[in-house]
């Protein structure tokens, strides 16, 4: 927890918020960090007149400061049945990751919102701020149960339409979506959100051969009961990995083209290592 306290959520952009926070904004405002001078105009706050310059030049100049604002942190968690799979479970991993990131957001006085989406509908908790709301966020996350099929596109549309202000959006999902992710991500692309697509995959999905998948199998999709008959062979596993790499690469390219950041996260990764090392290197945290 002490380590998490030192972290903060990074945005490649400086976003305006509704409350004055600890984040620099592009808007000039009240802070300690000097930005510029301008000529005094009628109605300006006299407290910001630089009296030293007036004494020297006999003209009124107004000092301008960068205004520090708070940050909206939106965490969207895929709770479809496919997330409750793998060892460790992708869902539990996402719960822990969301909690950690939410905690970081709350600790840094960011406005934290969380969404959970699956075919059962959308659940949300919004506008949490301050460390004292941590318990509330944790309780919400623990109440989530995975199930149903993925409704990614609808959920993204809902989130995009209902968002307040601007900020950082984290999408925690495996992105293994038969209906495709393109439409949903397009909703988020235009709104000034700094969007991070965190693709959470279990070791069984990344390297099924090494985790003991073998023999003649009838694979059943946990979401839609779809089946696939396979005979596990070296050639098939090789082809699967090629397909997985291609799928992830395509998602990454899609994100990059739209100013989003894509990260693939293995659920076998230690959470502290992920937070303190990986996500810092990738610019999500500082």
């Amino acid at each position, binding site marked *: 927890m002490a380590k998490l306290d030192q972290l903060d959520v990074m945005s490649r952009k400086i976003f305006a918020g509704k409350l004055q926070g600890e984040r620099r904004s592009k808007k000039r405002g009240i802070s300690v960090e000097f930005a510029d001078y301008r000529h005094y105009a009628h109605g300006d706050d006299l407290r910001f007149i630089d009296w030293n310059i007036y004494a020297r030049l006999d003209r009124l100049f107004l000092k301008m400061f960068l205004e520090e604002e708070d940050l909206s942190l939106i965490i969207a968690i895929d709770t479809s049945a496919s997330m409750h799979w793998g060892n460790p479970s992708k869902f539990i991993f996402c719960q822990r990751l969301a909690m950690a990131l939410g905690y970081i957001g709350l600790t840094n006085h960011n406005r934290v919102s969380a969404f959970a989406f699956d075919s059962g509908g959308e659940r949300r908790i919004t506008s949490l701020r301050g460390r004292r709301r941590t318990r509330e966020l944790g309780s919400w996350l623990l109440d989530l149960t995975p199930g149903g099929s993925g409704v990614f596109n609808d959920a993204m549309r809902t989130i995009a339409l209902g968002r307040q202000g601007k900020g950082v959006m984290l999408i925690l999902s495996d992105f293994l979506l038969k209906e495709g992710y393109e439409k949903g991500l397009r909703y988020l692309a235009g709104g000034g959100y700094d969007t991070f697509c965190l693709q959470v995959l279990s070791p069984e*999905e990344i390297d099924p051969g090494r985790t003991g998948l073998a023999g003649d199998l009838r694979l059943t999709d946990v979401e839609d009961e779809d089946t696939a008959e396979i005979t596990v062979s070296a050639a098939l596993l090789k082809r699967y990995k090629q397909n997985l790499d291609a799928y992830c690469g395509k998602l990454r390219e899609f994100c990059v083209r739209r100013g989003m950041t894509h990260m693939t996260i293995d659920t076998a990764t230690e959470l502290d290592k992920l937070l303190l090392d990986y996500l810092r290197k990738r610019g999500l945290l500082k």
Partner: protein
Amino acid sequence: MTWLTPVTGAILAAAVIPPLILLYFLKLRRRPQAIASTLLWKRSVEDLRANAPFQRLRRNLLLLLQLIALLLLVFAVMQPQIQAGRQRGGKTIFLIDNSASMTAMDAGEDETRLDEAKRLARERVEALYAGGLFSRVPGESMIVAFSDRAEVYCRFSRSKQELLDAIDRIRPTHGGTTLADALKLARAYTTNVDPESDRPVGAPATIEIFTDGRIADLPDQVLRGEHMIYYRIGTEEADNVTITAISVERPYDRPTAVEVFASLLNYNREAVTCDVQLSVDDTALAVEEIRIPLAEMDEGSGQLLPGRNNVVFTPFEQPRGAVLEIANLRDDALLADNVAQIVVPPPKRLIVGLVPASSFFVREALEGLSLKRLELLTQEQYEQRAEENRLDQYDVIVFDDYAPPPGLMPPGRYLSFGRTPPVDGLNEFGEHGAQLVLNIREEHPALRFVNLDNLRIGGGHLLQPAPDVEVLAEGSQGPLLVAVSRGAMHLIHVTFDPGMSTWPLLRSWVTFIFNAVEYLGQVGQGLTAKDLAVGEAIATRLPSSATDIALAVPESGIVPLEPRDPSQLSWGPIRLAGLYVLSWEVPDQDETQTRAFAVNLLDEFEGRIDVVPELQVGQTEVAGRAGESGVYTPLWPWAVALCLLVLMLEWWVYHRKMWV
């Protein structure tokens, strides 16, 4: 390629291959497994194989390998063999030529044609009797070797080992080549007569003949339904120069000297130069170089006319008896005809007995000859000595119009005039009147320089000679002079009494008496090499008291002989040319007595050894097969080995797929 058990293989293939393919079409019982998303798996599976069943089959390496393994197994069960003959159910006769020309060394490295023929025959037997587990029972086979006579080495048998042993036992001979006896033998064994209908039953046999095709009586033979397969042994470019004649004479004026002649034939298509060596008792005496012209094809008759040349050695002193040898020192394919030997007896003066003592013309003529002794015998004296078996002291006995009683003419050398002596083959059937001489055989030694043109005959005995009796002079009403030569019995008979003709008045009378007595006196010890040929028997007279009789035979060593009557000794038939030395002991003499017999090939027909491309048996042409056509090579062991290899590969592929 042939198949021994194709039906079994086909049944096996039908039984195992379709089920294997069906197994691949059946749904596999798969283990259910929940998974987060089938998205990527479906894509992967689709990438790996298309959905079309044939494409699936094509890409299924395991099925392909299993199919190959099964097909190889089926292939092995069908027992394929390459270059093997067809397996037949009927009777097969293997005729193997072991004549002189088959000793030619043109079949390979240190291998004669007979070796090659035996090897091929062995392979054919192996092929016929190499059936596996599922093959049907092969027919019977017989092994016959033939040269100038045929010999059964193995009667009809299904035992492969017995047949192979028989082939191994076949030995070369220096005989000529005739097929008649062999075919007669084969037919005697193959023709089964149905006792009810008294007609031949069963299919004609297959004759597989292994020869160079140089068969003297081939045009006279006819195939009576037999299927003949001709295995050509030897090459068409065989090099051979052959000695076809050798003669030795003692000049009349120098009885202690010897004069040697030899005749050589060249069958090659180019002229050759030969060194001909004369040896006396294994000591080289002289070498003459002669050039023999090339052989040419006579376009008119289509016959090959060999080049011919003679060699004459300068007369040399040889007062004692000796073995002379003429050797052609030039190497060629057939060695047997490169050497000819002849035994020269010491100059011998003859003891002649004349019966009856009252003879006039004959006695006059004999007294004029240079004889050691002429004994005049009355009929009673002759008959008494014949009964006492004391006639072997005479070299020649002359009957002048006398015929001894039957049984009193033991084997010996006889010259008779007038009455017909009691010899088989001379059948008298009356008397004839005056007649003239129509023709005579001048080449016979007894008729050399004998001119009978002016001979008038007043009367004599009509004679019906048997086929083996040689007619030396033919008159207008029948034979006038005949010669009989049977084993140790030699006879020249004149069918008329000289007193009833003008012959005693002619010069030819004395010449004939001299020739006939000399010829008969030297018979069997001869100055005429052709007297003993391969296929004949050695027949000679030894003293009745001779013991420890043995014969030294070329390539066989000493053969002890135990004749019932040494005075009628015979041994044969002779199978190989060379020098045969007879030895015996006489009780009152310390030294072992010996007598040599030279047997030479001297056969123009056998000397031509270029192989015949196709046999003309009567009107049937039988194409020759190359030497290797009967090689048997079973393929099933290879198929089984390959099958195991494919199974190992299949095992590896399977585990490579399963080990991830």
